[in-house]
């Protein structure tokens, strides 16, 4: 079957789902195509829609084929860019992949190509956000001896930071919870699992209260705030630089930026 008009492929928002769409574009030889995640889809009169079910085998075939066409860096850029959640990203990625398959030599450094540049730019912002989260996560010790952190990153970076925290905090239980995407990762001393939960109605993620956190936690937060203030050199004050490095939108969950406990 050959479809000539523009087809919209709708998928579940997962990376496997996206790769399955890519598989179908080649499989069904779709000439004009748009890929969109279900949560963003709006019915349109002028195109035919096709709902794609995630299929890990099909996704793996695309990913394996890409191995031969892209460097490790090129492949990780692709995944990073996907996690950037840009509304147009699926189509940039599709064109990027089509270009990679068509070309005889690797294209992931062809920065004058608009899709290669776009993907590498988005991947760069996602990488920056990943690095920021590795820096700005602040664990707080809960009453049941669990190190708990809440974040609201600009992009969906939890899958990218898992390994970093797993190899670093190997001897303590911890949770990093993304409040804007409502899911988290939980390390139970053996493995890291994805979790979602409903917070009790009296839980305020910004406050460190004795109802949820250990008394020792409040002491160490105080010591950290003191340290943060003592290490500042007032005669070199440079707030512009400070805010450039620690943008205000991240202050909400930084222990050193909380009012004195």
């Amino acid at each position, binding site marked *: 079957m050959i479809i000539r008009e523009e087809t919209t492929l709708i998928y579940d928002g997962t990376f496997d789902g996206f790769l399955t769409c890519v598989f179908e574009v080649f499989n069904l030889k779709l000439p004009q195509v748009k890929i969109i995640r279900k949560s963003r889809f709006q019915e349109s009169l002028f195109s035919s829609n096709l709902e794609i079910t995630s299929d890990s085998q099909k996704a793996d075939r695309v990913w394996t084929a890409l191995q031969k066409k892209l460097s490790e860096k090129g492949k990780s850029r692709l995944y990073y860019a996907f996690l950037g959640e840009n509304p147009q990203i699926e189509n940039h990625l599709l064109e990027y992949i089509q270009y990679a398959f068509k070309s005889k030599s690797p294209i992931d450094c*062809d920065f004058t190509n608009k899709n290669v540049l776009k993907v590498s730019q988005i991947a760069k912002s996602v990488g920056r956000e990943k690095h920021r989260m590795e820096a700005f996560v602040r664990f707080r010790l809960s009453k049941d001896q669990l190190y708990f952190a809440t974040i609201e990153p600009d992009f969906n970076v939890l899958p990218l930071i898992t390994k970093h925290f797993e190899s670093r905090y190997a001897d303590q239980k911890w949770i990093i919870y993304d409040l804007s995407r409502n899911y988290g990762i939980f390390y139970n001393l053996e493995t890291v699992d994805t979790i979602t939960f409903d917070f009790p109605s009296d839980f305020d993620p910004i406050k460190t209260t004795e109802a949820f956190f250990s008394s020792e936690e409040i002491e160490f937060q105080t010591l950290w705030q003191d340290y943060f203030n003592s*290490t500042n050199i007032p005669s070199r*004050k440079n707030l512009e630089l400070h805010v450039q490095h620690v943008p205000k939108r991240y202050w909400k969950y930084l222990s050193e930026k909380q009012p004195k406990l």
Partner: protein
Amino acid sequence: MSFERTQEKLKILADAAKYDVSCSSSGSKRNNKNKGLGDATGMGICHSYTEDGRCVSLLKILLTNYCIFDCAYCVTRKSNDIKRAAFQVQEVVDLTINFYRRNYIEGLFLSSGIFKSADYTMERLVSVAKKLRLEENFNGYIHLKSIPGASDELMKEAGLYADRLSVNIEIPTKEGLALLAPEKKREDFIKPMVKVKNEIIQYKSEKNIIKSTPKFAPAGQSTQMIIGASGESDQQIMWTSNYFYKKFNLKRVYYSGYIPISYDTRLPQIGTDVPMLRENRLYQTDWLMRFYGFDVEEILNNENQNLDLDVDPKLGWALRNLDQFPVNVNNADKRMLARVPGLGMKSVYKIIEARRFRKLNWEHIQRLGVALNRAKYFLECGTREFERRDLTAIQLKSLILQNSNSKYRTALGPQLNLFG
């Protein structure tokens, strides 16, 4: 540990340690072992920034600010009337572990005033690191200060537990040191540095034969110089720096603008501005030496003993060497591209990658995100469009300054007006 007492000590001993600018936490190769705590394999992470814009990566404290020396430039000098305090070894260990577990820091930076003797002090520093490694199975980053005059045996032990060791030479010239810290001798600074350098070389050669040789200071050594306390020239500073990089294989030399802390007449008086712009220019020069393939003599020599404050050192060099420009984007080698004012190494990399696919024109270069406001006067794309035309160095400088917005504009006011 008693919370109030620790709190008091932390305030005093963090405040006293803040003038040491090193905050690097990268370059080590320490993996997490046996599911312990911490990992120092990746690049360093700045977990926060103080309001003066400096990164907070390590818990930077003194073990004590009691000191038997009376160095004029130092806030903990014996004759200074300040509150004194001393941590116990276990207190430092507990603070480090608990800050680390909360993802506040990458590790510990431990320095100290010198009490009793160099060895006595060094021994205490080593025992903190040893306890962290052996008792707490801590694999985060540890930076220890080498105490001038410490024995070889202690330096060797320090290197087994620390990732980085550093000893601050503080004053760039011998004469300055004799004036401001008459009790200290340059040889005392050099001695631990030599020992650490030799141990690192030995570790590397043994490692080739026996893979399990215990690590020795995997993130190397660094040092720091105070800028603007003893009237030295930029040439003296950077030539000293270059000497230390080459002679002791240092990873980093830090430059710390002197912050007036004393009414001592040998020093700039309290209220004098911290030479932040000068400090910035010195770091730029340091980068040019380490990453951009410049020889220090090309930038600072007997004809040019001080860096320009109004332009960065690379632009300054280019203006003195206009005969080497313009550089062709499409066929210049990496070394020459790196010398173009305004091009950073990332832009150089992008240009080199992108030009393998097609011949680049101005539009391509702009799309790559390369900043052209300075570079355009020194580059050409093989077309007839070339911005410099036949401008002289002075005209060029004034053109660039007119069209740029330096963050130091206020500090530079009078100079800028000359060309504005």
